[in-house]
C-alpha cells in the first residue's frame, strides 16, 4: 500500500492532505507542532464538510479523516513512498527539513517540493538523491484547483517525473510542464501584476475596488489582483516579490512601498481581518 507523507500542516499542507485522502490515498501528515496537527485535522474535517457547497464533490468527512494519520517531526514520514513538502518558503527551514528527510526516508522515496519560488535544483542539492527530487506548485485551495505547475530539477529522472505525474493524475490534477526557474510561470506574472496593482493604489490612480473591478468586469477574472493579494496574504506577496527581486537582481521586481507599509502595519489581508479590504468576521 502506497503511503504519502505530507510535510507541514499549514494552509497548503492541509489542502494537499485533504486532496490526497479524498482521492483514496493513505496520508501521514507531519508538522513540528502537535497543536497545529490537531487544528489541521479539524480544518480538513470542516473543509470536507463544505466541499459540495464550494463546488467540489460531496464528501464524508469521517471517511476523509480515516485516511490521515499524523506525526510530529519530519522523521514521521520515514516510511512514506513519496513525500510532498509544504513548509514555509524560508530556505533555512526547507534545508533542515530535507536533510532530515534524506537521512530518514528509504533510498527510493521521491521528494516533491511544493514551492512557489524556490529553485528545485537548489533543494535537490542538499540531498543525496537529486534524481528523486521534483517540484510541484500546488494552488490554493488545493482540492478545488484543477492544475499545478510540474517542475523537474536539473538532475530529476524520468522515472521520478512519471511517478509524480501518476500521483497528480490520481489526485485529479492536470500537470503543466514548466522549467526550473525562480517563480516559475505563475509567480513571475502574478506577483508583478499584484505589485503593479498596489502601485496604482499607492499613486492614487485608482482605489482597490476600481482596480479589481477592471479585472472582474473587463477581463472576466473571478477575482481582482488585490482581492487575490488579501487571500494569499499581503506579507506573503511582499516576501515573494522580494525573492524575485533578489534572485534576478532586476529592478522590474522592486516591491511597492505600500506593500511594505501594509506588512509593517499588520494589514496582511483576510487572515488579519484587514488588507486592501476590511473583513469583519463577527458580522
Amino acid at each position: 500500500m502506497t503511503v504519502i507523507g505530507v510535510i507541514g500542516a499549514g494552509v497548503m499542507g492541509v489542502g494537499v492532505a485533504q486532496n490526497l485522502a479524498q482521492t483514496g490515498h493513505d496520508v501521514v501528515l507531519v508538522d513540528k507542532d502537535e497543536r497545529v496537527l490537531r487544528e489541521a485535522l479539524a480544518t480538513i474535517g470542516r473543509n470536507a464538510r463544505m466541499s459540495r457547497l464550494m463546488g467540489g464533490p460531496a464528501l464524508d468527512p469521517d471517511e476523509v479523516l480515516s485516511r490521515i494519520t499524523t506525526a510530529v517531526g519530519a522523521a514521521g514520514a520515514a516510511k512514506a513512498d513519496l513525500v510532498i513538502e509544504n513548509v514555509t518558503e524560508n530556505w533555512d527551514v526547507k534545508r533542515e527539513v530535507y536533510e532530515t528527510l534524506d537521512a530518514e526516508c528509504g533510498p527510493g522515496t521521491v521528494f516533491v517540493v511544493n514551492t512557489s519560488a524556490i529553485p528545485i535544483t537548489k533543494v535537490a542539492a542538499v540531498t543525496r538523491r537529486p534524481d528523486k527530487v521534483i517540484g510541484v506548485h500546488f494552488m490554493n485551495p488545493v482540492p478545488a484547483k484543477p492544475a499545478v505547475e510540474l517542475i523537474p530539477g536539473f538532475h530529476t529522472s524520468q522515472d521520478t517525473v512519471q511517478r509524480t505525474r501518476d500521483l497528480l493524475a490520481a489526485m485529479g490534477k492536470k500537470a503543466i510542464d514548466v522549467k526550473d526557474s525562480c517563480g516559475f510561470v505563475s509567480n513571475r506574472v502574478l506577483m508583478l501584476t499584484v505589485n503593479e496593482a498596489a502601485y496604482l493604489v499607492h499613486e492614487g490612480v485608482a482605489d482597490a475596488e476600481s482596480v479589481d473591478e477592471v479585472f472582474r468586469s473587463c477581463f472576466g477574472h473571478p477575482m481582482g489582483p488585490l482581492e487575490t493579494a488579501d487571500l494569499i496574504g499581503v506579507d506573503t506577496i511582499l516576501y515573494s516579490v522580494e525573492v524575485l527581486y533578489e534572485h534576478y537582481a532586476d529592478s522590474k521586481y522592486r516591491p511597492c512601498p505600500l506593500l511594505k507599509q501594509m506588512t509593517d502595519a499588520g494589514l496582511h489581508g483576510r487572515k488579519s481581518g484587514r488588507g486592501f479590504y476590511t473583513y469583519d468576521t463577527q458580522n
Partner: protein
Amino acid sequence: MSTTAKGQILDFIRGRYPQAEIDESQDIFALGFVNSLFAMELVMFVEKTFEVTIPNEELRIDNFRTADAMSGLVSRLAPDLAVA
C-alpha cells in the same frame, strides 16, 4: 438591526457587499460577486447566529442562494427561532 432570521441574514450580506442592492429573493451567487469563500462564511454565520448545526445533506448551494432560502433552512432546523 433586524430581529427576524431573514432580516439578520440580509444585514450580514449587505454588510459584506454594501455596493450591491440585494433583496430577499435575489440569487446572490448569480450576481457574480459572491464566491465560494463567502459561501463558507454564510454557513458559519448561520450556524453561529442561530445556534444550529446544518446537516451535511443540507450544505447545498441552493439552500444559500437567497435570504429566503437561508431563512427557510433556519426555520427547518430551528422552528421556534424563525417565527421571531
